[in-house]
Structure formats: structure tokens, C-alpha cells
């Protein structure tokens, strides 16, 4: 009876078990996909977007997607919680992902403001930013035109944000500017023709809701008292 590899086998099994277990636990989903629990928002807004591989579609009227603005730019005050309703317009997979590009004065921020076309030239520079968050995931969508999925995103930091679809990053993208100045209680809302529309927070919510027939997921009372984890 010569040497036996029993002990080596035991050691190898233990090493494999530790390696597998460690890797598995360390790859656990942690912060991504989670809205913060302690975010106290001042304003609420709701946006209805059409997911179309040719570009994000912003409807000009109720159920009127085809005549909308493509890839509109949005303006919000700091502290706005935005509810996103995404209606599928084609049979392709999409996501609605939002990433923080930096403050408006940072290099990337100012260059984006100066030339929004930049983001189209090098989509990967923002697509894989570590600070991105997918509001509406691929698995929430069904590739059935007309189906709507929802998500929410709180804008806590002033600066430039990009929203895009990770499946179609070269066509479906746009900018969001979050303004830090706190003059007035108004929400700077979506704008067309580069003219921000200034409205009172609740009024804007209601008028927007009325005007575009957007679905507000909860009543105001529920929203303000809501716990944001586990959406």
C-alpha cells in the first residue's frame, strides 16, 4: 500500500468548494437595480416613451406615437422622482437605461451640452458607465407592440444624464439635464424646441397627466409615503 491521494483530494475538494462559493456569493446582485431607500424627493413627474429601434418616441398626444419627437431632451429639478412608462412600438427587445455622465461643468458634461451629437459618435463611453441603472429591463418587455412596462428613477444629483437602450445604443439615446438651482418651486419639465416649460410641481404632474393620458402608478399620498426598495 503506497502513498494515497486521499488528503490531496480532500484539500482539492475544499479549495474548489471555497472558490465556487466565494465567486458565487461575490457575484450576488447588490446595488444595481435598486432605488435608494432614503431618497426623499421634492417633485414627481411622469413620462411616457415609445420604444422604437429608430429612436425613443415622445408622443405628442394620447396614443399618438408616430408623430412624436424622436429622442427628446428632458429637464428636471434636483430631487425629482420620474415615473417612466415605456410602450413597445416594435417587436424588438429594448431597455430604458439611465446613466450619470457628470456635472454640467465637467469635461464630458460640457462637451455633451455643446454637442449632443457626441454621444452618438462613441456610444460605449457612456453605455458601460458604472453609474448606470436600467429603469425598464429587457425582461420586463414582451416584444409585443402596445405592451407597456414601468419603472422609476430619482434624480438626486445635478448634472448631465444620458438615457438610452442598451440594445440599440446608436439610435435610441437622449440627454437629461438636472438643474441644481433651487429658485422657485417649479419643475423644469420636458421641453420641445429647446424652451423649458416651467410649471409648479403638482400642477405640472396633473396637467401632464391630463394632457398626455400618462399612467401615474400611485396616488400622491402613496408615493410620498412609499418605501422605494423592491419596486
Amino acid at each position: 500500500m503506497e502513498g494515497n491521494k486521499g488528503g490531496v483530494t480532500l484539500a482539492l475538494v475544499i479549495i474548489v468548494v471555497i472558490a465556487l462559493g466565494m465567486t458565487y456569493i461575490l457575484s450576488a446582485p447588490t446595488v444595481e437595480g435598486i432605488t435608494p431607500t432614503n431618497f426623499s424627493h421634492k417633485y414627481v413627474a411622469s413620462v411616457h416613451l415609445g420604444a422604437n429601434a429608430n429612436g425613443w418616441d415622445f408622443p405628442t398626444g394620447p396614443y399618438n406615437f408616430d408623430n412624436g419627437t424622436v429622442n427628446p431632451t428632458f429637464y428636471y429639478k434636483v430631487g425629482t422622482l420620474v415615473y417612466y412608462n415605456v410602450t413597445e412600438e416594435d417587436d424588438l427587445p429594448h431597455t430604458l437605461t439611465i446613466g450619470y455622465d457628470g456635472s454640467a461643468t465637467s469635461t464630458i458634461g460640457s462637451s455633451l451640452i455643446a454637442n449632443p451629437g457626441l454621444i452618438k459618435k462613441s456610444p460605449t463611453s457612456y453605455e458601460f458607465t458604472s453609474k448606470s441603472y436600467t429603469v425598464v429591463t429587457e425582461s420586463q418587455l414582451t416584444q409585443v407592440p402596445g405592451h407597456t412596462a414601468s419603472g422609476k428613477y430619482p434624480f438626486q444629483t445635478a448634472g448631465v444624464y444620458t438615457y438610452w437602450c442598451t440594445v440599440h445604443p446608436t439610435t435610441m439615446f437622449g440627454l437629461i439635464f438636472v438643474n441644481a438651482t433651487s429658485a422657485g418651486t417649479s419643475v423644469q419639465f420636458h421641453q420641445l424646441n429647446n424652451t423649458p416649460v416651467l410649471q409648479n410641481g403638482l400642477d405640472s404632474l396633473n396637467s401632464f397627466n391630463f394632457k398626455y393620458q400618462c399612467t401615474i402608478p400611485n396616488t400622491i399620498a402613496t408615493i410620498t409615503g412609499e418605501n422605494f426598495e423592491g419596486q
Partner: protein
Amino acid sequence: MSFLPVSYQALPGVVAGATHYVLEVMIILTILGVLTFYIYYLISSRKEAVEEAAGKEGYTDSSEYVRDKMYGRKRKADFSMFIYDDAKSIGLRYIFTGIAFLFLAGSFGVMMRVSLVDPNPVVISPVLYDIFLTQHATLMIYMFALGVGFGFAYYLLPSYLRLKKDNMGTLSSVAYWIWLLGGALFVVSRSSMRWYMYPPLSLQLTPYGAGMANWLAVIAMELIFIGITMASIIVLKIIFLDRADDMPLSKMPIFAWSIVFTLIMVVSSDPPLMVGLGMLFYDFFNPVFFTASSNTVLNFAILFWFWGHPIVYIAVLPFFGLIYEIIQKFTGGKVYSYSSAIIGMGTLLIFSELVWGHHLLNSGLGVDWVLFFTTTSFVVVIPSAISVFNWIATLWTADRIRLSTPMLFVINAIFDFILGGIEGVMLANDSFNEIAHGTYFVTGHFHFIFVGMTLGVTMAVFYMLYPTFSGGRVYNERLAKWHFYITAFGSFLMSFSWSVGGFLGMPRAVAGYFPFFQPYQDSAIIGGVIIGIGQLVFLYNIATSWLKKPVTDTNNAFETVEDIPAAVSEAEPLAKDTQAVNGGE
């Protein structure tokens, strides 16, 4: 990555979403499946040989043939322990699985320690810390401490009690696999609900709640409970019905008694939590039990701690018994007082059911109940002290004590048990408990006992059984001594730093701490890493010494030839086919 009150600082490269999670689980299950198939391939030919041999001798059930053939033999550790289901093979399965989980959960513990180098959680995120915390605690208690306890019971009791028959192997095997499946699924669940599973946290299926797959963790816990309940009943049956006729209860080895008390605790205390877990699982779909307005989550806490305190004793009581046995082997004498040993452990069984409320002293039980639980918790000192003084008296009256590695582990276990026990008595005082309950003082208290006693005595018994496990090889005594000194020093440093820091108010079970506590955390980190290094020395020692030629016989101090009547048949060579089964040695 900075501390994360602000969200969206996601880990780069990690993609969230159910699809990716399923993919990840599938990849890991595939790897495990391939490994399992390889092992199956290795053993299937042996299994065929066994069936053939069994058929020749007229057995219809090959397992029964194996049990008859293996009965009374000292059992070597090899792959065949996973196909044979005689009591000793089952014991080996439990022992080696328990040790594998010790290393897995231990690596989680070291990871937690290392992540606390900075007051802010800069190494791993708080969510990961919570997962490591939950996994470390649950795996250590249910898979390591309980597993090794069952392992030693299954392995040693057939020799100790000279069993008349060994006929529950198939059920034991089923219990083992259910238990192992439960443990594996608990890791897969990546739950972060702490080991006590309080709702409403455990009902939140998010990474910031109790984990995305926490429902799986609840199922896993139920599986573990089914496994250990089955195994407990089988071992109790072995002890009470199958032991040799000439062995009355009053002359049973102390280890057998400690197992009796442990298993009575298991079968009498785990039904409340099994029911509680069932209700908790129902609450995932229809929250009518614990989070409904007509109920309170405290009800779950009570169901849990009715089991939660006995499990703490379950994790140490078999090792009480083993300490008695080991001391006798290394002093060459009998234990100082047999009857007080039994009385001490038996009273511990009774009190384990009466003190569970001291885990909930701060929950508003009311003054009357707090007085009751505080009093009973103080009274627990008496049976514990009976055992401690019995050990000391046995050592005191011995002619000489052989201080080889297992005995060193045992002496350290007694020392650490006294320290941890005194901290436990302090915690039983309600006014002190109110201050120290949420601090590292509690962590220091039970790590003194668990690392010192549960881990230490496990290592002592493993070293003593090593010649039998390895087929006549001896471990390197020098490395084993190093293993002991490193482990003992590291465990003392870690638990003592926690105790002092906790006394000053260092909060436990959180991913960060106030910079004021840096020295206590730093020394605990050093202690924790030192313990880890000590276990690597152990692993290296086992791996290398197993590679050498056998130099001694396969006897061990626990099961000498005289202890085993059937060992006479060891003189006869095994049947040829059985030799093939055993690997042709």
C-alpha cells in the same frame, strides 16, 4: 467605491436581472453536475462488484450485504463512503462534509473580517457583507457543528455500544442527502436574512432585503431540518434499541449520553421552528401570519428562539461528551465522576428549553418573563460548572497527562469555554444585556465557545481518528502543534478583541464601524486571519501526510480492538470481491 447612501454606484461589469441570475445558477449547477457524474462514474463499477458479490451470497439487498460485511470494521475514508450506507460510512460522510463546510463558512468569515479593515465598507458592499454574515452563521451551525456532531455519533457509537445490528443505513443515507441538499441550496439562495430569519426582513425579496432568492433559503432550512430530524431519530434508535445487551444505560459511555441529550433537544425543539418556517413560506404569497395586523413578528422570534437556544447547546453538547472521552484517553484513568457528568449534561438539556427568552430580553416580554429567563439563565451555570469541574478534577487526579495535540486542543477548549461562559453569564443579566445585546460582546461570547470548543474538539477527534481514516498514516506532529498554537492564539485574539470592543459598545453584524473602534476591529481582523492560516496548516498537514506510506496500524484510541467484538473477523481476509470494492488494497 465609497459608502453607499447614494445609489447607482453599481459594480462595473455586473449585470443584474433574473435572466442572468438563472444563467449563473445554471453554470454552477452544470459544474456540480459534471463533478457528480464523474464521481458516479468512479463508483459505479465498484457498486456493480458489490451487487455481484451480494448476489453470490444470497443477499437481495446489496446495502444489507455491505452493512453485514462492514459491521465492526474500522472504516477507512475513501470515495466508497458515499455508496456504502453502513453506520461508519454515514459517519464519515457527515464528518468530511462538515469539514468542507467549515472551510467554506470559515472563508466567508475571514472575508467579513478582511472587509472591516476600514470603518467604511470599501472592500465589499454592505449587501455582500450581510450575505457573508448569514451564510457564515447558518453554515457553521447547521452544516459544520451539527454535521460533525452527527458524524462522530454515527462513526463512534457502533464501536462504543457494540451494536447488535446496523439496519437503518438506507434511511440514514436519505437523511444525509436531504441535509446536504438543504445546505447547498442555502448557499445558492444567497440569502442575507441573518440566521434567525425574522420577518418582515425575511419576506423582502430584494438584495437590500433578505436576498433575491430568500424563498429558496426558507426551503433549504426546511430540508436541513427534515434531514437532521430523521438522523436524530435513527441515532436515538441505535442508542436505545441496538446497543449490546450487556451494556445498561448506567454504563453507557459519556459520549453516548451526550448524544442522547443532544438529539432529544433536536427532536423536541425543532418542530416549532419547522412550523414557523412553513408559515413564513406561506407569508411570501399571502401574508396572513407574521406581518398581518392581527399578529406580531415577535411570534416568529419566539418560535425561532424556542429552537434557537437549544441549537446553541446542540452545537456544543456532543463536544462535552467528546472532551470527557479524550481526557480519559490522555490521562489513562477514568473520568472523575461518571454520574455527575450525566447529571450535568442532562440538566443542561432541561435548561436549554427554559432559557430561550434571554435572546429576547429587550423585546418587551415584560418584567415577569424577564425575571424568569434571567433566573434560569443564571441557573444554567450550575450544570456547566459541574462539567467544567469534572474535567478539571479528572485532569487533577491523573497520574500524568500526555500533552499531544488533541489534548492541547481539549485544554484550550476548557479554557475558552470558561471565558465564553462567564461572558454568557454577564449577558444573562438583563440590565447589562440591554447595553451589550447589540454589540460584539455577544459575538465574542459565542466565538470563544464555538471556536474553542466546537472547532477545537473536532480537530482533536479528527487527529485521533486520522490513522484509521488514512489507513495507517500518521500526521506530522510538528505541523499539528503549529495548527493548534495558531488556532488557539488567533481565536483568543479575535474573541477577546470583540469582547473588549463590544463592552465599549461596538455594534455587531454591520458592515462598518465608528473609527473609535478601529483598534478592536484591527486586532480581531488579525485574529481571524490567523485562524484561517491555522486551518490551512491543518489542510496541508493532512494532504501531505496522506501521501506518505502507511507506517502504523489502523487502530485509534477511540475504537480499540477489544471494543469491537466483530473485529475478531478482521483476522480473516475480506472476500476477494469486497477487496476489489475497497479499492484493491
